[in-house]
């Protein structure tokens, strides 16, 4: 089959090389969702306008997200014979300047550049497997993908026996990237072993973790890598039909996928008799209608069947044995499939060489929160938390103190500063009371209240609970009520123990993974930040000064310069004062919205937040 792919590949490589060595400059604009949110489309328009004005010829292309969301909009320019330069935080105005300066006057504008040669700045720390093409190729161009050895894995796989493929996946040690971390090869094998006239491959791209967008970036930036992985899986387990289960809130990803599927079909990389191998594989997109619990396999399958996504209680057959329409169904995450093509193409040993022994490969994180460089990162398994946060992430923003890092979203937990040396992999995070989950990593500083964070996640879990089992439905609600009480200063002695007891019962009693992990954020914050809970309950004090009910805003009359900014901005007219008269806050009227605090110029720092007995200013 590789022979059949060869002409396609050669043509693509030729195209790619021509593109690189063509006489024209190439301008790449990162136009994934994050880029677009920062104005990528306006930037592209500005570039086009300017080129027209200056009558310059250049190729302008869209690309996916390279991961440096903190620097969007990202623009890459490759001038013939020059290295690729990446420019950060480009606005339409800057883009116009850049075009004129670099393309006309040959001023490379190093002041705007973030790096040269198109790689991420932390090359030594980051390894790109899943995201290797993101931000690099045009996701709408299958030839771009083919030029990067795309579909080589599929072509090779089609020459192998299904069991051989599964053996390679097993040898590679690849574990599911959706959160569970179940060995992919074993799952595939159990699918292969069940005899059935029809089997299905489903890619779970229903990313529901609030604070994670890795899957979306992959789908938007390199859709073919997922399609290829699914086709390989289909061949390996004997399925002729695949379904991409994508969140309906990801319209761009859906659009890119549709284009990619069409392109793959046109080139016989999907559809009937792929590359003459006799293997046929069709791919449909199902738009998930917004339910976090549909990350659970049985719930996901039910929702495709047009039912409520209520997970089936144990004991029940595995989805790999009895899934969609009762047929064997292989369900893996976007990133898992993205790894597969390369494992087959480059061999399992290559994959094993990355990461740790028990957890080979890379981990993709959405690094967000109070960190300087937010964005998507891909690191080898086993890297220490500290390196991720302080080196790749550039440390805590605003020079504040690190307090905790949350991984695994609503199923995960918060790890404190003394765990920063923890090597990150699937098992170590679980052992520490958190989870890798799908890959959200939120950094918190000393202004984040851990009780409030626990409350936040629990609120999320309760809202997303399918509602069928009592422990999850009523238990999380009860825990949430108690947490709300605590954040409102109505906590009672014994509440912490009650939370722990209830959390354990919910874990033991719930039907599915959602309920079984919903108490994690609470239990892990109690485990590492119990004193913060106690301060709320006993001293009615929120050490992070975040819980509204436990703080008061006042103005330091000595520091106040009576500039009137807070007075003007206060939405509840709680501030009184006049010119040259220090302002005061009427606590009865104060809504504690915090606007005065942020309005007060840093050089005055006259607005104070008090909780319990302590106070602080900005």
């Amino acid at each position: 089959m590789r022979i059949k792919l060869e002409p396609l590949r050669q043509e693509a490589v030729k195209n790619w090389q021509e593109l690189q060595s063509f006489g024209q400059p190439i301008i790449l604009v990162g136009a994934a969702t994050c880029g677009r949110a920062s104005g990528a489309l306006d930037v592209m328009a500005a570039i086009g306008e300017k080129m027209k004005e200056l009558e310059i010829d250049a190729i302008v292309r869209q690309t996916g997200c390279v991961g440096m969301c903190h620097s969007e909009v990202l623009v890459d320019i490759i001038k013939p014979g020059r290295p690729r330069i990446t420019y950060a935080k480009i606005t339409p105005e800057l883009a116009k300047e850049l075009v004129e300066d670099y393309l006309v006057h040959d001023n490379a504008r190093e002041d705007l550049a973030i790096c040269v040669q198109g790689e991420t700045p932390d090359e030594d720390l980051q390894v790109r497997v899943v995201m290797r093409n993101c931000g690099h190729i045009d996701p709408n161009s299958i030839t771009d993908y083919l030029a990067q050895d795309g579909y080589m894995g599929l072509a090779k796989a089609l020459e192998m026996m299904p069991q051989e493929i599964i053996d390679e996946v097993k040898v590679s040690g690849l574990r599911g990237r959706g959160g569970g971390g179940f060995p992919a090869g074993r799952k595939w094998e159990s699918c292969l072993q069940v005899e059935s006239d029809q089997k299905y491959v489903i890619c779970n791209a229903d990313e529901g973790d609030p604070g994670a967008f890795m899957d979306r970036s992959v789908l938007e930036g390199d859709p073919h890598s997922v399609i290829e992985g699914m086709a390989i899986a289909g061949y390996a387990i004997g399925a002729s039909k695949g379904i991409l289960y994508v969140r309906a809130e990801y319209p761009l990803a859906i659009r890119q996928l549709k284009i990619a599927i069409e392109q793959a079909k046109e080139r016989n990389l999907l559809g009937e008799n792929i590359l003459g191998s006799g293997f046929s594989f069709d791919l449909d997109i199902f738009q998930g209608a917004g339910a976090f619990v549909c990350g659970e396999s049985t719930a996901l399958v039910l929702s495709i069947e047009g039912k409520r996504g209520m997970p089936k209680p144990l004991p029940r057959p595995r989805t790999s044995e009895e899934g969609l329409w009762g047929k064997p169904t292989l369900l893996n995450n976007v990133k898992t499939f993205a790894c597969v093509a390369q494992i087959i193409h480059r061999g399992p040993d290559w994959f094993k060489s990355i990461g740790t022994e028990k957890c080979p490969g890379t981990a993709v994180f959405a690094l967000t929160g109070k960190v300087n460089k937010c964005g998507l990162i891909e690191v080898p398994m086993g890297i220490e938390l500290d390196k991720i946060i302080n080196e790749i992430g550039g440390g805590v923003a605003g020079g504040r103190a690190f307090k905790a890092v949350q991984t695994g979203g609503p199923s995960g937990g918060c790890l404190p500063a003394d765990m920063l040396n923890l090597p990150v992999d699937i098992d170590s995070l679980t052992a520490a009371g958190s989870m890798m989950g799908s890959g959200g990593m939120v950094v918190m500083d000393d202004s984040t209240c851990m009780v409030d964070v626990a409350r936040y996640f629990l609120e999320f879990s309760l809202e997303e609970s399918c509602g069928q089992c009592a422990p999850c439905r009523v238990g999380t609600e009860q825990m949430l009520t108690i947490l709300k009480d605590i954040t409102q200063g109505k906590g009672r002695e014994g509440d912490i123990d009650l939370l722990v007891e209830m959390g354990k019962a919910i874990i033991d009693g719930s039907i599915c993974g959602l309920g079984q992990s919903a108490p994690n954020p609470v239990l892990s914050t109690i485990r590492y930040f119990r004193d913060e809970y106690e301060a709320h309950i006993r001293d009615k004090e929120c050490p992070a000064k975040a819980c509204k009910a436990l703080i008061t805003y006042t103005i330091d009359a000595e520091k106040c310069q009576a500039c009137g900014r807070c007075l003007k901005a206060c939405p509840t007219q709680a501030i009184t004062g006049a010119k040259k008269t220090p302002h005061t806050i009427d606590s009865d009227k104060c809504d504690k919205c915090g606007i005065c605090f942020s309005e007060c110029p840093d050089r005055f720092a006259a607005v104070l937040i008090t909780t319990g007995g302590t106070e602080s200013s900005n």
Partner: protein
Amino acid sequence: MKKEDVKFQEIFSRYKGDREELIPILQDTQAIYGYLTDPAMCAIARFLRVPQSQVYGVSTFFAQFYFTRRGKHAIKVCLGTACHVKGAGRLMEAFEREMGIGCGCITDDYSFSLERVNCVGACAIAPVVMVGEDVYGHVESKRVKEVLETYADKT
């Protein structure tokens, strides 16, 4: 028949009438009306031979579906984790205060609705607010008025 109703009837012609088409049909229906009406859901039930109660059970299970008319401009405050730690909660309160309605509600003149979303995937520019398709990053409470005014004229 109204133009929307004609379009709605057309939806069925694209489907076979099998249960698994329920969610796609609901999505198509919402794309036409902006929300799911009771008669539309009953018609879908009849077309798919699915009990009405189950069409409703499925619709209400998923966050994507609405059952009341939406505002012309949907303000969506992201309450993803990154936005939350960056003060999205207070931002939401600011919108509620400014608009005079609670989260999940619609202004009396149907010009705005206020909703929360769980992560729009733009965590790097948190806190984030979406108005229709437009994304606003680093939104502070004091910018709420300004954002609303941008759209007030367009109603």
